[in-house]
């Protein structure tokens, strides 16, 4: 079985689906001839031509807006936004148009498509190459929000996204784009949305995380001694739809919860997870729910590793929660 990084897994999924479904098209800035600034679309234009792999002008609202039009017309567009930080020129198109088209048209005009975008910090990118906007999209009814943490999931989830009937925000953790490597089966396979993965079973407490943070959590376990508290580590993989069953089952078992995400704390996805657990499993809790998140500041540059959840911060949160 080949060993891929996340970029190669994404590329593989796109290539397979484009071979299978002639209606799948890719568009974005520098995705064609150059193969994307992170190389995720390398070789696609050579294989599928300029009609299906389109280098667009530099306008995110145009990329998403025209992709919506293609989806309304029956194509299956995959729009790449070069960095999640630059998605905001298209925010109106995503929130007011894409997310609402099926609903506002009474099902006359659904717009199934995929928006792929690298997100997250830890790559020395400062304010505008580091943000994690997932909660904004999870807050918007009508969008699915998917975040893989490894190559196997990236390929299987992207293939599902390309066949889904709804718009999918596919956020790729660029910090581990190349670092996360693993065996990826050749050929097609899909991973259903709404299924979290229990990465490590445990009895002591539940750790909820996704994307690049999974790797930081695992580092806390492996290098900082957090494993001694026997955490159950859950990689959510899919924020919308959310696997509430797996989350609640684990919480009922452990009674203790630590949530880790790199987006800022206030109104981050961790707030939603905390509320869910409070609503549905309050009486199982034996300790306050703890969130380890980015600070409520713009994303910094020099001190970014202090801003981001670190193995040390996570270990301390795990220890405090386990001992509470």
């Amino acid at each position: 079985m080949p060993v891929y990084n996340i970029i190669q897994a994404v590329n593989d999924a796109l290539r397979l689906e484009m071979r299978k479904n002639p209606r799948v098209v890719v568009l974005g800035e520098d995705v064609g001839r150059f193969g994307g600034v992170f190389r995720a679309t390398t070789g696609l234009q050579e294989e599928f031509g300029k009609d299906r792999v389109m280098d667009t002008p530099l306008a995110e609202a145009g990329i998403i807006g025209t992709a919506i039009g293609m989806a309304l017309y029956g194509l299956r567009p995959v729009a790449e936004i070069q960095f999640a930080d630059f998605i905001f020129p298209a925010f109106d198109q995503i929130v007011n148009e894409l997310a609402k088209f099926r609903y506002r048209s009474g099902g006359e005009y659904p717009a199934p498509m995929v928006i792929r975008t690298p997100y997250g910090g830890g790559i020395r990118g400062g304010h505008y190459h580091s943000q994690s906007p997932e909660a904004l999209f999870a807050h918007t009814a009508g969008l699915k929000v998917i975040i893989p943490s490894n190559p196997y999931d990236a390929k299987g989830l992207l293939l599902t996204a390309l066949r889904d009937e709804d718009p999918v925000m596919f956020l790729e953790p660029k910090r581990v784009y190349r670092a996360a490597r693993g065996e990826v089966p050749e050929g097609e396979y899909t991973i259903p949305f709404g299924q979290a993965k229990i990465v490590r079973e445990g009895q002591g407490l539940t750790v909820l995380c996704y994307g690049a943070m999974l790797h930081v959590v695992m580092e806390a376990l492996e290098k900082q001694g957090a494993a001694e508290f026997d955490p159950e580590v859950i990689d959510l993989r899919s924020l919308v739809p959310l696997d509430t069953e797996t989350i609640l089952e684990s919480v009922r078992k452990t009674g203790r919860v630590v949530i880790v995400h790199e987006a800022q704390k206030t109104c981050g996805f961790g707030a939603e997870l905390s509320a869910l657990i409070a609503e549905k499993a309050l009486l199982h809790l034996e300790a306050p729910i703890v969130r380890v998140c980015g600070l409520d500041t713009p994303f910094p540059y020099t001190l970014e590793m202090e801003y981001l959840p670190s193995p040390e911060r996570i270990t301390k949160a795990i220890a405090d929660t386990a001992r509470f």
Partner: protein
Amino acid sequence: MSTAVPTPVARPSGLDQAPYQLIAPDGRCDAARIDACAVPAAQLLALYRGMLRIRLMDERLLTMQRQGRISFYGEARGQEAAVVGTAAALGPEDYIVPALREAGAALYRGLPLAAYIAQIFGNDHDLTRGRQMPCHPGSRAARYVTMSSCIGTQLPHATGMAMAAQQLRDGHVIAGYMGDGATSEGDFHVALNFAGVFRAPVVFVCQNNQWAISTPVSQQTATPTMAEKALAYGLPAVRCDGNDVLACYVAMRALVARARRGEGPQFLEALTYRVSAHSSSDDPSRYRDESVTAVWREARCPLVRFRAFLLGRGLLSPEGDSALREELDAEVRAVITAEESVAPPPLRSLIEDVFALVPPHLVEQLAEVAAALPQKPAH
């Protein structure tokens, strides 16, 4: 004496030409020019019927809004020629991506009047299931995309649909509509730029009615025309008299044919005037000189003009015109009566169409709503 200072590039002279017109406001025309357009009599009558139908419908619905029977209404009064003339030039399988005043275009190409009225009531017959305020129709069968209230957002969709049509090589053309105000939005520029770069078969139609709520076009842009914005993106542009339905039809027909032949995106600026208030929530006497409006409303009325033309050419008689009015008015009244008593959509529709399948958390949220609904008194 030569100078080192550069001279700014000249504005193309074509932009200063009078807009394309075939029928003068009093109905007179150059018969040879009209004949050269080769528009069959049946088509001419269909244009008149389409315009008259929305005029009568708008009048009736605005009255109903005043009576409190519907919450809101936005008329297209005075713009019927631009709406119907351009829509009539499209093929049955071409798509319309509308802005806010093109409902008459949907009706012209076959959206049942009942569907339009049902949307206004937001009742159980509404194809779009009571999810938007009045005047937001949409239908796949009529190839009329369901609009949102957001100004300008539809224009990149029109370009994208045209890019898809080009890719699928189905020969269809997309018409993307906008008002003059929309040309200030980023989406307008993005849409024209992408269309130009990809040579997409889209025809943009700007209904320049000279107002965006209280903002006159002179405060919307420093350019004297909207057409020159299209030139900036490499689109051929035509300016036409938007109150001359035949000019709108013939101009649009030519642009649609060019787009269909693979000559890339096209732009039509139809010059007209918003003689009505912006909507039922607006009072234009607070911000504009209504004596100017009166000129457009009467002397430049597109229906008066085309009626005079048809009478002059012997294609319509005063009696025939009265009979047509009666027929259309009766149709509008009957449909309104039928739709007004239709029940609202079922509660369950609240959570449908968010996603292709209704997810469990929405079922749970709806159950909470349903459990606390006030009991309806038994009849």
